[in-house]
């Protein structure tokens, strides 16, 4: 297959990757349109990184097929590498090189033409806010700066498709927001962004989302579609002075699929949306007289909790670490 401008950025069908007995990615199929921000959401070990590595040509699929930027995953891995930018989980840069030297290196590797190198470099430095620190050793940069430099190094050659593997892990919320502004800017200029995350707020700002758990895609669609279509059951928000006790208690009630802590409140997923009153009375007989129960519109996180392994509370993503 040839890379044409009309082809979708990413198409995969039944993509599978096994490591011995363990199937990390299990018959995954999806399409990412050009210029889209596609979020890949899932808990640690769900298969997000394995998928992204197959798409970047770093891992061969065990079975299944797909194209990236119009090139075949199996036969065109090296051609794909010319048309993508990839930022790995650890924003792995050369610590003993300066900001500028890292940029120069990747510009050389991507074959950025000499007459355009200066302009691209300046653009990346400005975008990453590293103009003043261009001569600093990368080792001494704070995590947020390294992250932006890593992004900068991955887009020096203006790739049509950009893969970001947990680009905001370990970065403070303010910097995360700034980083996502960069992602949106790039998408506006036509770059396709494929990003894995386990942050719900980041997932909500994607154009489309794929939810992956245990190597399988469990939901696919816009954040809006996911909230409306994929939620099994209704969500009740419980406010009380003892939310932990309430969560434990709620799990034992008939008709309650799951209960999970959301800040100071507890979200309970129930089969019947009209169960609020009965749940409140059960809580009050259980010793939580101050509990108030109201039905709410499910958030992405609710959808996630309800879909991921039947809503096991420890399946809630949000922790650090790698897959």
């Amino acid at each position, binding site marked *: 297959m040839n890379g044409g401008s009309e082809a979708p950025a990413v198409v995969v069908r039944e993509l599978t990757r096994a490591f011995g007995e363990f199937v990390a990615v299990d018959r995954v199929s999806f399409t990412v349109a050009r210029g889209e921000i596609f979020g890949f959401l899932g808990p640690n070990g769900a298969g997000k990184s394995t998928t992204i590595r197959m798409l970047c040509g*770093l891992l061969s699929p065990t079975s299944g097929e797909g194209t990236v930027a119009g090139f075949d995953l199996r036969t065109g891995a090296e051609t794909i*590498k010319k048309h993508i930018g990839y930022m790995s989980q650890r924003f792995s840069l050369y610590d003993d*090189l300066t900001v500028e030297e890292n940029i120069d*290196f990747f510009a*050389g590797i991507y*074959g950025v033409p000499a007459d355009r190198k200066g302009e691209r470099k300046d653009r990346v430095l400005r975008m990453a806010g590293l103009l003043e620190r261009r001569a600093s050793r990368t080792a001494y940069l704070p995590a947020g700066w390294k992250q932006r430099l890593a992004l900068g190094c991955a887009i020096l050659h203006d790739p049509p498709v950009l893969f970001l593997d947990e680009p905001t892990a370990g970065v403070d919320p303010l910097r995360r927001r700034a980083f996502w502004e960069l992602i949106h800017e790039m998408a506006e200029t036509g770059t396709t962004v494929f990003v894995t995350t386990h942050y719900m707020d980041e997932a909500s700002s994607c154009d489309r989302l794929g939810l992956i758990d245990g190597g399988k895609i469990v939901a696919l669609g816009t954040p809006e579609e996911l909230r409306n279509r994929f939620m099994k059951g209704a969500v009740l928000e419980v406010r009380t002075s003892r939310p932990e006790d309430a969560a434990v208690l709620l799990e034992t009630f008939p008709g309650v699929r799951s209960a999970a802590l959301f800040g100071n409140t507890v979200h309970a997923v129930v089969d019947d949306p009209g169960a609020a009153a009965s749940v409140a009375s059960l809580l009050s007989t259980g010793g939580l007289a101050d509990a108030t129960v109201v039905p709410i519109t499910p958030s992405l996180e609710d959808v996630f909790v309800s879909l991921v392994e039947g809503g096991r509370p420890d399946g809630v993503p949000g922790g650090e670490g790698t897959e």
Partner: protein
Amino acid sequence: MNLRRTWAVARKETLHVARDPRSLALAIALPVLMMLLYGYALRLDVDDVPLAVWDRSGTPQSRELVARFSGSRYFRVGGIRGGYREIEQSIARGDVLAALVIPDDFTAKLAGAGGAPVQLLLDGSDSNTATVVLGYAEIVTQRYSGDVRLRMAAAAGVALPREPLAFRPRVWFNEEMTSRNFIIPGLIAVIMMVISAMLTSLTVAKEWEQGTMEPLIATPLQPSELVIGKLVPYFALGMLDVLLCVAAGELLFQVPLRGSGALLFGMAAVFLVGALTLGMLFSIVAKSQMLATQMAMVMTFVPGFLLSGFVFPIWSMPVPVQAATRLIPARYFVSLLRGIYLKGAGLSVLAGEASLLVLFGVVVVGLSIRKFRKKLE
């Protein structure tokens, strides 16, 4: 192979080398240190053999014999002993390697029909040295014996027939027959083998361990560009090491360089490409810095010292071992350097070894490029 990408790798690798002063210092100091250590300690010459003397005769004749020993450059009289017990102890302790015992009737028997018996006791544990010492002692005693005969004939007014044989040996290439001239060129070869493989054994494995390889293999960078680009700074460092070793040979050990310096450095360059890439091959295959250094040490040090012919002559090895030495690239570099240094040989004489070194380089570079996979599994 794209030159710009190769150059980008070479540049960043040079920066890594330049920014790691400890490794850089080691890369420069280690070969010099090894030159000093092995150059001074490793001597195969048998000179100044410590000799104990028990002169029971105590006559002018016996003292002359002792003087012949102490006057030669091969022996150093290491004490006068008064009995076999003492001699036995000195030899056992290693104070002396040999003992000369002159009986009390020495002078009387000199003129007798049976000749005067002189005993040499020898520590034979190091058979090589013992053989050499025995040879020396035989020459000293034969000369003495001949001189005494001449004097006796002169005293009797008889003319002795002339020596029937006129032996005229001429030593080539290492006229002074100092083992240093033989050892230093080989030592340079062996040191360069070990150092080169060590220099590059970390470079690829380090990138896997630090996680910088993952973004790198997601780029259009080709294995050949990576291998050759990474080679550049280490090649420069290796050539500097060769220069230091040659300078040490010249200034500290006064080893004569008879052949062409350009040929020497040219051959060193060919050898370095192979030896450095061999280290990188270990790094590529092992993917772990620890394992790669260990492989480099084991695979170069032992064969380099034992099988290269640097100290232990290949012709005296059992035939299967001799065949094995053909696989050791250091062997060809050792004989090349010896040829250039001592024999002043040119490329026409050394073409065989030189082409084998080229082959070594081509094979190792080819293998490294093939073995480097742009995949994570």
